[in-house]
């Protein structure tokens, strides 16, 4: 028995060793970003690189955050993100339910139409899409950025469909015997069973709109409605860039994503007991 415990300890030690070794590699880009933010100009591009900024330029952070109206841009961005997450989770789970759990004629067509929108490169649909929004008088508003999510997007629908497909049909059949409607099955059975998947989809929707540059660039025409990703461009001039400030602002910009990721992945642990297979 003690031999077994000893083996378990060795296993844990090995696991941590491997995780830390590879983890260092994965931590490198972020470390680099923060280090660059703290570097004096001369150290940003030094070859061989400077690992520890000396002396660290802490004032780069307050400078970067006051160079553009960071607070306003954060609120603007958060609003767009929130609407994107809400719209994506709602619409995509509904459509995915239809594709995974309801047998009806035409669902193959819906599925492939969905994939098709992803397969056709966006560069050539950009101009006609812009024309649609212009005829709706939506240019200069955030509507082109927040309304489409409420109609779903192919990536998230497809992902949720794959997850819903793994839920045994017998579960929904049983619910039907209990007199449950499809809406009931969707809200009371499928959604609760798919927390990790929904969290994943929400996470991707958040990150997607948080980092989206082209959308706000094309559709927003007022500095007061700008988002952070556009605000970052302020640090890039025609002849170069304010690298330290750019990095400082970029580093601060990743903080909310880290928080959201942290929240989302908490559901990854709860999932196991909810699959309904193991009581």
């Amino acid at each position: 028995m003690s031999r077994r415990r000893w083996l378990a300890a060795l296993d844990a030690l090995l696991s941590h060793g491997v995780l830390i070794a590879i983890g260092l590699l994965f931590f490198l880009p972020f470390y680099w970003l923060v280090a660059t933010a703290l570097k004096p100009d001369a150290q940003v591009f030094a070859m061989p690189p400077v690992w520890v900024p000396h002396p660290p330029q802490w004032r780069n952070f307050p400078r970067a955050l006051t160079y553009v109206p960071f607070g306003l841009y954060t609120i603007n961005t958060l609003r767009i993100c929130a609407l994107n997450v809400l719209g994506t989770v709602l619409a995509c789970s509904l459509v995915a339910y239809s594709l995974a759990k309801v047998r009806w004629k035409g669902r193959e067509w819906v599925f492939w139409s969905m994939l098709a929108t992803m397969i056709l490169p966006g560069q050539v649909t950009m101009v006609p899409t812009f024309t649609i929004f212009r005829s709706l008088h939506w240019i200069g508003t955030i509507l082109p950025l927040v309304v489409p999510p409420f109609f779903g997007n192919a990536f998230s629908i497809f992902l949720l469909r794959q997850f819903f497909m793994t839920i045994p049909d017998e579960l929904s059949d049983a619910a039907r015997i209990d007199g449950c409607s499809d809406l009931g099955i969707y809200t009371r059975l499928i959604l609760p069973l798919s927390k990790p998947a929904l969290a994943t989809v929400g996470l991707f929707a958040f990150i997607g709109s948080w980092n989206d540059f082209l959308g706000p660039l094309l559709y927003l025409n007022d500095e007061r409605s700008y988002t952070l990703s556009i605000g970052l461009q302020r640090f890039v001039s025609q002849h170069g860039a304010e690298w330290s400030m750019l990095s400082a602002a970029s580093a601060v910009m990743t903080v909310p994503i880290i928080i959201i990721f942290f929240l989302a992945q908490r559901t990854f642990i709860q999932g196991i007991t909810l699959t309904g297979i193991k009581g």
Partner: protein
Amino acid sequence: MKERSSHLLTSSPPHLHPYRRRASRNAQLTGLAFAAPWIVGFIVFFAYPVIASAYYSLCSFDAIRPPRFIGFENYRRMFTEDDLFWKSLWNTLYMVVAGLPVGLAASLGIALLLNRKVKGMTVYRTIYYLPSITPVVATSILWLWLLNPEMGLINIALGKMHLMQPGWLTDPAWAKAALILMGLWGAGGGMVIYLAALQDVPESLTEAAALDGAGKLQQFRHVTLPMLSPVILFNLIMGLIGSFQYFTQAYVMTSGGPQDSTMFYALHLFNRAFLDFRMGYASAMAWVLFLVTLVCALLVFKTSARWVYYAGEGR
């Protein structure tokens, strides 16, 4: 509910069938209703752009003046006169064939590593995910140094091991490999999806397999992998589409060089559409890419029936 479901999983009582039949009468309406957001969205936001771009592909069109119909001239030129079309298609196929499997395996491997029960796993997961959210532009300096032929970390390490030291981004033969290597740091995106899916692999199944005398490797092959297969299919299809449209890194870091070795299809298309005023030609390119990708996706789906396992597939 849980108890009932575990009972239902093992056997499907015959009295269920009437319900199934009755349900199928309403299924058409229900399915349509649930899919309505997509269908409406597709008609409003996608139908016109898709049709328009198909029409533009038959036109000489600069996106400003009205399109001028020229039939299949864009397609003819693309296939017979545009050396960059073939070059960029080749480069892109390289990314699909060489880069995609590497990326898929990496994200699956990391997900398995991060699904172990080890203290502080949430921190590990966050760290492994970080590179996927660190902006490419901000870290491009880091990459240029890591991949530097003379003083980059990677070549120094290779030198210590007495291995070949490629020129990476300065060498046309290695530039694509360098981009694939860089892509490995972004494995976090696929990892999240695998991690979410791994929560659906019930421990009872692996435990049962273990009791039957299956080793770790066999458990993985016969339990974990089949349970993950639906999201492997997802990541494969998304990776396929993404690789065919590979753009950002090449746009930011190499702009197609050296010597067109990282001139990818989407980059060529972008140049034609937005620098050259040749939106019609770019549309034709887009539709060729569409067909190529679609055929690949269809092939994947065709074979998927053999290797993807859906617990809840209605048959």
